[in-house]
């Protein structure tokens, strides 16, 4: 190989390196872009140099870990978002302070026990009972509303995931085509990695270096084929539409935002169920004592609340007015002993058997504390997973990311290579000219 050819190969190599550095700088702030470097190999007898290809920096193990942490962060963030909306309902300002309103009702009965003939206090008892019943409706409907609103957003998320799955399958096809033609398929792999990260964050699915994606061991993308996720059962379960028929995923297999939203909806509905059980049990205990007493009008056997057959919100018995509040055990206007018995239910242990030996207020405390743990746990886990994903992302970025300063330093190096190679070509030309002149 001539000196001139060697110099020219150096110029071509430096030019390719400069082009790659320019592309790296241009894409430095593009999310998901991976650093590219020119692969050089000795050419011919080893005197020259040749560009063998463009290598895309990758860290598949880190990418898988980042996707797993991002999926966990997204799961917990969605769980937090749904449950955080629900916990606002439980505060006094949210209208759902069941324990406070129940205690207010017991307090009114206690007042009535001292002044059983007092029509003003009787009216206050009716109002307190109405407020308690209204709160049961508000809490139940508000919690169901949170669950329904959250579930309604699932179809959009599933659509987003299905779109990304189709794009991954399509990119697998394009990558195979570019690879077979010897072209640079790095940008396509960048896109695919980004889409797999999106799918992971939405569903908790895992992708591999071939671009295959699976969820709970069931394929979502296999080569150039993709299979859709389907929302079933009133937006409460997810199936995968496989050629042999749909397969329902167990809820614990679904992660990411979709899994977190499903888990959040389940938690909120479970909370509503527990609250309704507490309200219904306590109301039944009040009804039992109330029915055994006598109203100011002599009426007896009346329930204060109507309670649904399955756990749900209660209502005040429409037959109950101030005169029908059964304050007396003996049908005497000045006897408040039955009202006193109802008031003492506030400290009765085991009033709601589902909550063991707790009083009503203790059971409420257990319910809100347990739900608070769910909300707090989701928030803490989301932050931890985000921090872990961020740390791993920084690590991956140290391998695959672009540092503009580093690229600028390399450009100086490539410029020097280019100038030096140019000098080689010029020297070769001078040498040939000298030889020609000498021979002449």
């Amino acid at each position, binding site marked *: 190989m001539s000196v001139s050819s060697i110099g020219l190969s150096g110029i071509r190599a430096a030019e390719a390196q400069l082009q790659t550095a320019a592309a790296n700088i241009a894409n*430095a*702030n*593009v*999310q998901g*872009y991976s650093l590219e470097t020119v692969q050089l190999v000795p050419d011919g007898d080893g005197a020259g140099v040749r560009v063998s290809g463009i290598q895309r920096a990758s860290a598949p193990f880190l990418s898988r870990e980042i996707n797993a942490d991002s999926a966990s962060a997204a799961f917990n963030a969605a769980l937090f978002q749904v449950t*955080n909306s629900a*916990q*606002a309902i*439980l505060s006094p300002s949210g209208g759902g302070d069941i*324990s*406070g309103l129940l*205690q*207010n009702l*017991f*307090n009114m009965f*206690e*007042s009535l*026990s*001292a*002044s*059983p*003939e*007092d029509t003003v206090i009787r009216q206050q008892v009716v109002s307190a009972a109405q407020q308690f019943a209204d709160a049961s409706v508000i809490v139940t409907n508000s919690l169901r509303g949170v669950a329904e609103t959250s579930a309604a957003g699932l179809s959009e998320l599933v659509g987003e995931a299905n779109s990304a799955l189709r794009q991954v399958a399509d990119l697998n096809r394009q990558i195979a085509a570019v690879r077979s033609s010897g072209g640079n398929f790095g940008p396509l792999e960048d896109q695919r990695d980004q889409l797999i990260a999106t799918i992971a964050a939405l569903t908790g699915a895992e992708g591999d270096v071939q671009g295959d994606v699976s969820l709970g061991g069931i394929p979502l993308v296999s080569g150039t084929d993709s299979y859709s996720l389907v929302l079933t059962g009133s937006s409460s379960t997810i199936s995968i539409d496989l050629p042999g028929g749909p397969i329902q995923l167990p809820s614990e297999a679904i992660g990411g935002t979709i899994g977190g939203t499903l888990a959040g909806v389940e938690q909120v509905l479970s909370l509503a169920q527990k609250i309704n059980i507490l309200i219904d049990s306590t109301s039944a205990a009040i009804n039992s004592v109330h029915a055994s007493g006598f109203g100011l009008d002599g009426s007896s056997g009346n329930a204060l609340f109507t309670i649904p057959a399955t756990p749900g919100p209660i209502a005040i018995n429409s037959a109950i007015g101030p005169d029908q509040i059964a304050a*007396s055990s003996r049908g*005497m*206007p*000045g*006897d*408040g002993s039955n009202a*006193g018995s109802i008031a003492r239910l*506030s*400290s009765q242990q085991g009033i709601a058997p589902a909550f063991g030996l707790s009083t009503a*207020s*203790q059971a*409420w*405390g257990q319910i*809100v*504390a*347990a*739900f*608070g743990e769910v*909300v*707090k746990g989701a928030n803490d886990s989301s932050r931890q997973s*985000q*921090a872990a994903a*961020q740390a791993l*992302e*920084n*690590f991956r*970025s*140290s*391998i695959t*990311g*672009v*540092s*503009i*300063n*580093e690229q*600028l*330093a390399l450009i100086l190096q490539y410029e020097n290579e280019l100038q030096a190679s140019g000098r080689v070509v010029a020297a070769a030309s001078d040498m040939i000219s000298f030889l020609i002149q000498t021979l002449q």
Partner: protein
Amino acid sequence: MRRANLVSIERMSDLAFGAATVAALNAAAAELQTAQTQLATGRRVNQPSDDPSAFGQASVLTTMKSSLEEEINQANTAASRLNVISGALEHAANAIQQAIQIAESAANGTNNPQNLADFGKAVEGIMEAMVGLGNTKDGNVYVFSGEATDTPPFTASGAYLGSSGANVVDFFNQASVKTTLAGSAVFGDSGAGTGIMSALQSLLSALNAGDQAGVRGAIPALTGALNQIGAVQASVGASIQVVESVSSAAATQSQQVDSKISILTDADIARVSADAALAGAKEQALIAIASQSRQISLVNILA
């Protein structure tokens, strides 16, 4: 031979640097927001997730506090009624003493029939006053009518129409007091020939009949009725002490519960202020770092 410790410094891409800075800024902003919320509300626990255990305990304690406040109200209401009863009993005792004095004056053997008739008129007034005291009301409640609190318990002749029971108020410390009384157990029943009502009727009959022996014979019954009223007064006095004690104990417990709620949910203002200042400083430092890192870029050096 000493070997230098090698420190590994990772490459830092511009994108990662930006993302790390934004993440750190978000974390600092979240810390600042938490501190500011606590400073604004004065509370560390504003919702269940802030501290689930504390929120649950505070919820139970808040209910307990509400119950204790109702106990205080209940005790105050009972005390008010018992004071009405006590006042009526005091007037009744005074009236009986007047009746005894009249009976003693009428029975000393120096009175003519006209004098006895005059004494009789005075006893009629006392009888009327006694019936009025027996029909004492607290608001709409006849306090000496037992459980029949909507009915005047005594007729003009001192016959009892109320019930033999009483309304009993129970308190959280197992104490209980009667807030209405059966009038027959206090004033007797002229129809049944018991108590002050019967004694006054007997005295009146003897005075009107000019029967000095009968007048003398009425004195022990009057003295017995006075003792009966005295016993009821003592019982009512004890009840007043009970409700005052209940009120005081409930107030003390309420303060203790308040203190527990405060410990569980209130913010430590000094510490939160320091946290807010620290989070603010962190935020400023991160902004400065982000700004400075751009200035030392190789792009600026080469430009």
